[in-house]
Structure formats: C-alpha cells, structure tokens
C-alpha cells in the first residue's frame, strides 16, 4: 500500500520542477547607483503590495555597552522627521487602509507597510524620508525608553522561558554579540540616550546598507522608477564600516546552565551546539543541518520522538531547531520536555544515548525522501504567500547571502545525502562544543 502511494507520487512530482521555477521567475533584482539593493517579487492575484526596507544592521552590530540600541532606534523611527509629525507615518498608512510595523533581529532591522498597490509611491516617499531625516526630542527618548522597558518586561522578565533562553545564548556565545539579547540587557537599556541612538543611526542608516523588497501587484520597472525617485537621491555613506564582529573561538569545554524560577511549572532541557550557518556559495553543510533538525526533531515521525516518546515514555515533547540564515556562526538546538516522573538528568541521558544511536543507525531513507518531498511541495505552497517569499529574501540578503544563494537553496536541499547528514551530525553534535541548560522550579518548590 505504502509503496504504491510512493510510486504514484514520484510520478506526480516529475512535472514540478518547471512549476517550482515560477517562484524564481517572479523575482527581479537590481541595484541603485547609491548601492541600495532592490528585489521585486511579483504576485498579481490581488491588488496589494508589501513594501519592506531591510537594513543590514541589527543588535549584533551595536557598540559594546549599548545593547538594545538597534531595537530602540527601530521604535524611534516612528517619531518625527523633517516633514512628518511623530506617529504621522503610521497614521498615514492607516488612513490609506494599510498596516505597518517593524522588527529587529541580530543581523537586521526591517520596516514594512502592506497597502493597496496604488499607494506604493507614498510608502516609498515616507520610508526614504525617515532613513535620513528623523528629528528626535529628549521627551521621545525618555517616553519610548519606558515603552521598550515594558516590552522587555512583557517578553523576558515576566517569562522564565525568556530569561532562560537569554542565559543559554549568553553561555553559547562567549565572544560574539549573538550572546547579547536583541532587546538589550535591562541595565544597559536604562542608560540608552540620544547620543547612542543617533550614533547608530548615522553609521548604519544609509542606502548602501539596505535591501528594498517590494512584493505583490507591481511591475519591476515601476519599482525601479519609484525607487530611483525617492531613494536614489540619498547619497551612499562612504564611511559605512564593514560588518566585522568578534567571532566565537572554537569551543573546547562543554558548558552548563541551570536556571531556577518559582514561576516554572514545566521543567525542560535545552541543548545548544555551535554550528555553521549558510554562507554565500557554500550552503551544503547548512543544508545537511536543516535536514538533521527535521529528522531528529521535526514532529511525530522524527527520530527523537521515536526514541523518547514512543519507544520509551521519557518525554512529552521533543524538538530540534536550526537557524541557518545568520551572518556568523549560529546554533543547533534540541529541546526535551520530560514526562512527569522523569528527571532532567534522566532526560539528558536518554537524549545523549539517542543522539549517539542515531549516528550509529544512520538516516532512514524513507524518512529522508518524505522530507524532500515536503520541501518540494513547500515551494508550491510558498507561491500562495508573496510576503513569506519577501521575508525569505530579506533575511538572506541581510545575512551575507545573495539572490543566487536563495534561488539555489531548494535544489541544494534536494541533493543532500544520508551520508552528508550523518557527517553533519558528527561534526556538530559534540558535547565539548555544547551548552546544556536546565530550566527548573525554584528549590523550595521541589523540596
């Protein structure tokens, strides 16, 4: 029965390679004279566009002592400019029936508006304006700093999992800024001032440090004309520094994190390994790690679920995660939520035994083929979501990858072999290059 289905499927998939090309066909990219990179993703089904401006500047580009300034600046870009009052940009987007927001990560800061296609001109005019013309007041700084502190309260301080994750990152990255939280350490956030903000803005906010991504019901030529009109006149910053961060040294000793909190109801175990990221032209190892995460912890049929949830009832949940899009070395993470009568120590032993056994057993060929099939299908489903494709390009192009890398990625994934995955597992799943974290209840609670 199963074999019959598999056969009919491989026949069905034979016709897909041509269709899967459609995503790439819908993408056009070019560069303005001032160094701004532009990517257009056409989807003419609905008269809507998404306009996104991505800066190649994130929290890992912050100066020491100013953690959180990239994200703080992101908030402050909604205040006044020479031609817009505070809040007017968002109000204008809303008055045009659109919505807007922004987000900050380690390697990028991005601003976006989603709006009717005929309003693109206005969006570009306003976004170009705030790239160079913000006018902040001291009151903006004081009030908005309270807002980001409340944001930190909400995301981190009120959430033991958030606090634990922050400690795990700090332990994993000894020497790289990925160890510092994007939102910032509280004690440094409290001291962020106008000078910190404007210094970051002046250095990083310029057209030669951006990627403009417009997706939806647009023609590439129209985007080029508008981009040249609004972004084109902004001069490149010749003093834009190269993005050189202090790198992680080879990890020689395993590290452990134990975080106790009275608000923890469900203890769990997280294992983090230092891992290579996707590099321009060299994505093969990252492709193997992408499969490794899926095979180890990608759901009911995964290897760790098999060992820790089905063969033995050690865990109520297992997962494996790999963030391959990253400018510098990244991490490969495994999560185990133990069953009620299982201690974290027992769960950890079971995890290590399963990982060792996996390298012995090798990859199940049927499982690998199912995952490859799903990846091929995901390229079809992706065509229903131009915003998702826009995000894919935005993250990649601000993390050291090129348009060609993004377009080659699905094919690179299809060529990964069972041996590649085991080799990646041997290279990355090493205890001496790992952090093991236990999130636990407060000691009083367990006595």
């Amino acid at each position, binding site marked *: 029965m*199963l074999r019959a*289905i598999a056969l*009919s*499927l491989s026949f*069905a*998939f034979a016709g897909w390679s041509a*269709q899967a090309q459609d995503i790439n066909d819908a993408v056009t990219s070019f560069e303005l004279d001032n160094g701004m990179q532009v990517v257009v993703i056409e989807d003419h*089904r*609905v*008269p*809507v566009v998404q306009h996104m401006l991505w800066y190649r500047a994130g929290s890992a580009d912050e100066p020491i002592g100013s953690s959180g300034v990239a994200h703080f600046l992101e908030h402050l870009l909604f205040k006044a400019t020479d*031609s*817009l009052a505070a*809040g007017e940009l*968002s*109000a*204008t987007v*809303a*008055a*045009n*029936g*659109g*919505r807007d927001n922004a987000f900050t990560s380690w390697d990028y800061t991005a601003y976006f508006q*989603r*709006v*009717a296609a*005929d*309003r693109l*001109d206005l969006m570009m005019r306003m976004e170009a304006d705030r790239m160079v013309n913000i006018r902040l007041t001291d009151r903006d700084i004081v*009030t*908005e*700093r*309270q*807002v*980001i502190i*409340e*944001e930190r*309260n*909400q995301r981190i*301080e*009120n959430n033991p999992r958030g606090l634990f994750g922050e400690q795990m990152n700090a332990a994993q990255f000894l020497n790289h800024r990925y160890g510092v939280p994007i939102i910032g350490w509280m004690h440094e956030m409290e001291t962020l001032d106008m000078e910190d903000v404007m210094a970051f803005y002046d250095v990083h906010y310029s057209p030669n440090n951006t990627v403009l991504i417009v997706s939806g019901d647009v023609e590439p030529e129209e985007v080029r004309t508008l981009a040249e009109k609004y972004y084109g006149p902004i001069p490149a910053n010749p003093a834009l520094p190269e993005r050189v961060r202090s790198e992680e040294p080879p990890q020689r000793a395993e590290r452990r994190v134990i975080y106790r909190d*009275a608000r*923890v*109801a*469900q203890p769990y175990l997280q294992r983090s390994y230092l891992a290579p990221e996707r590099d321009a032209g060299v994505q093969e190892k990252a492709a193997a790690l992408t499969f490794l995460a899926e095979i180890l912890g990608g*759901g*009911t*049929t995964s290897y760790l679920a098999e060992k820790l949830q089905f063969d033995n*009832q050690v865990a*109520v949940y297992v997962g494996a995660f790999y963030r391959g899009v990253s400018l510098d070395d990244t991490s490969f993470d495994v999560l185990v939520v133990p069953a*009620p009568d299982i201690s974290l120590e027992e769960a950890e032993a079971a995890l290590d035994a399963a990982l060792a056994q996996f390298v012995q057993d090798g990859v199940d060929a049927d499982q690998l083929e*199912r*995952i490859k*099939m*799903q990846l091929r*299908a995901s390229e*079809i*489903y992706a065509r*229903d*979501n131009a915003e998702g494709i826009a995000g894919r390009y935005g993250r990649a192009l601000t993390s050291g990858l090129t348009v060609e890398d993004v377009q080659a990625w699905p094919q690179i994934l299809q060529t990964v072999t069972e041996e590649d995955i085991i080799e990646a597992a041997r290279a990355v799943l090493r205890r001496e290059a790992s952090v093991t974290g236990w999130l636990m209840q407060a000691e009083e609670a367990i006595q």
Partner: protein
Amino acid sequence: MTRIFAALVSLCLAAPAWADVTIKEVTSPGGVDAWLVEDHSIPFMALELRFRGGTSLDADDARGATNLMVGLLEEGAGELDARAFARELEGLAASISFDSSDDDVSVSARFLSENREDAVRLLKLALTQPRFDEDAVERVRQQVLSGLRSDARDPNKLAGEAFAAMAYGTHPYARPEQGTITSVSALTREDLIDAHLRTIARDRLFIGAVGDITEEELGTLLDDLLSAIPETGASFPDPAEVTIDGGVTVVPFDTPQSVALFGHRGIDRDDPDFFPAFVMNHILGGGGFESRLMTEVREKRGLTYGVYSYLLPKDLAAVYLGSVASANDRMAEAIDVIRAEWARMAEAGVTAEELDAAKTYLTGAYPLRFDGHGRIASIMTGMQLQGLGVDYITTRNAKVEAVTVEDIARVAARVMQPDNLHFVVVGQPEGLDVATE
C-alpha cells in the same frame, strides 16, 4: 510642512483596492452546502471545516474531553496507528490541523492537487475512525497536562480564567476550555468517544474551500468525506448570563510586570448597532498605534508596550474586553488612564476626523485580509458561523461608510459602561485601591 503633506495624502485617496474574491455557494449531490472560491493558478487547495459548539459541549463530568479528543484525531485512525498516520500524511506533503475553542471544533487542511484523493482519504479516516489507542491517549494527555501546569503559572492565562469565572458564572464559558488537571487526569476512552459524538456532526458544520478545485470536484469530495459523519450531536447550551460589575480584582502573583484583562458586557454580532460599535472600538483601542488607548497609555506616557480593546461577540454571550501589561508600580496609572478614556468615549463619542480616519483604514484594510487560500477559507467559514451571506464581502464596507458621528455617540452611550468596567490584575500591582481576591 506637515499640513502640506496631509493635503497631498488626501488627494491620492482614490478608489480603494477591492478584494477580488468571488464566492460560490455550492451544494453537493448529497446535499452538503459549502462556500467555494476557485483559483487554479497554484496546484493546491485549502479546506476549512468548522463544527459549531466546541468545548462548550463537554459533558459536565468530562471537562476537557473535546480538547483531548481533538488532539487525538491525528494520532491514529482506521488501520493506521499514530506513527503510520503521520508518515502517510508526510509522504503526501499535505497538512491537516485540528483545533478547538469554546465555540467550535475546526479543521484546517491543505492538499496538493496531485494527490488530493489520498489526502482526503486520510482526513476522512481521522474524522470518522479515530482509534483513541491507549498509548496515544496517555501520550497526548500528558502533553495537555504539561500545558495546564504551565498555564497555572502564566499571568495571562490566570487573568483570562479569573475573568471568565467572574463573567460567566455557571455557564460552560466559565470553565477552562482544556479542562483542569483533575478533570483531564480522569478522562476515559469512553469520554473521548462521547466527545466525538457530541461535537462532530453535520447539522453544525460549515465549510469553506479555496483553490485548485471545481464545483463538481468539491461536491464529490465532500460527499465522500462526510458520508460517515452523524447527522446530529449534543444540544447547544443556553446563552450565558454575563454578570460583570465595576471594580478591580487582584490575583497575587510574584512577577515584575502586572497583566490586566478588563471589560464588561458587549454587543451581539447581529445587533443593528454592531457596526457603529465596531468602528467606535477601532478608534478607542482596536489596534494600530493611532487608537486613543495606544496614544494615551503608550505613546504619551510610556506605560506599556501594548494596550488593546476588542468586541468579542461569542455564540452564547457578548463581552467587550481589553488588555494591558505594565510594571507593578505603573499599573495603577495605566488603569486610571484607561478608565478616563472609557468615560470620555461614553460621554463624548468621537470626532469627525477620528471617524474619517477610522473609515479609510477599515475599508482600505478589509481587502488586505484575503491573502492566501487558507486565510480565505477560514474567513468564509467564520462568516457562515456568524450567519452572514456571501454578499457580505461586497456590502461590508458600505456598512462601515454609513456610520455617523451621531450613531457612535448614541451607541457609545449604550455600549460603554464605565461604571461596570472591571479589571482583573495578575501580579503585584502597587497603589491599587482594591479588595484583594
């Protein structure tokens, strides 16, 4: 400078983009009704099924049974145990997800055109022949219990439960949708079979389909998929008596930021005043940085990262709710500001400028919702559950446009009840004038 800019903006407020969504009401040969949007540009379809009732149909002695049952639908069916079922689904690159709320059980599925029949066969197995194997039941039960233990230390969940218990008294809405640690621990396989019979029935089913399928193909698909589903299930509970009096309830919890849920009675979806109330709420706290609550609580005072209000017309009760989170020493001020805004709206309504801005946003943003097959299928089933017609999409913006300043003044006086506005605060708020729970 700013004024010139505003003038330019109003000039380009031409005709808003229109949602190009054509819904067909279809009836299968076997008599199953569904809404369909055909789009053959991408070779897949999304299918959404919703069964009215949901966890509110739990038997009194089996609370949490519907939630656990729904969690087990993808854990083995027919001849396939949990792992075999998951492997088959993976091999088809289809996705099927099941969910429940206190108003419905929902199924969201996505299939490639290439293997639609095989995917539908799996979905049919899950819906009609779930196995509820003992090991699967125990495994999923432990996952639910793990979630419940976490909820018991989650300030947002604590606020939601305390508010629901206060608002809905003895009605099923007052109970946690997932049950309690005690009730879930005691559920039996018979309870799950019973929950399945109570909730999964054709007389309460609404269907939306979007994508690469014709009307005829959909009819055949639905007749096959639903042929073994019983005609009727458990009777629905009576509407809830909502009782909320003004005041503040504090649920002590040791955490740096207090979380508050606030509200009072709301307005039904089919009330003739619903649209004025909806537009009014958008101006008060309906999202975006421009709302009065965001302006006063966040932008001017920096008291929070986010503050929102929303009308929540459920099937059996209507409430008007809001939420805010603020450091323990600042929550009292946030509450004062929110109360003042509540009273200001009740007394003075909105200005013509506010109403104009709200209308351009709401009418312009509406078509932006229809982005993607799964989203459209979900919106269509939601419309059916609310008793709206297929023409709603084309008439909805006219209803927003028709709202006047006077309508809002009248409706605000009726809907806003500053004296009944109750705050449930979880945390260690300072300086709040309350009787602690």
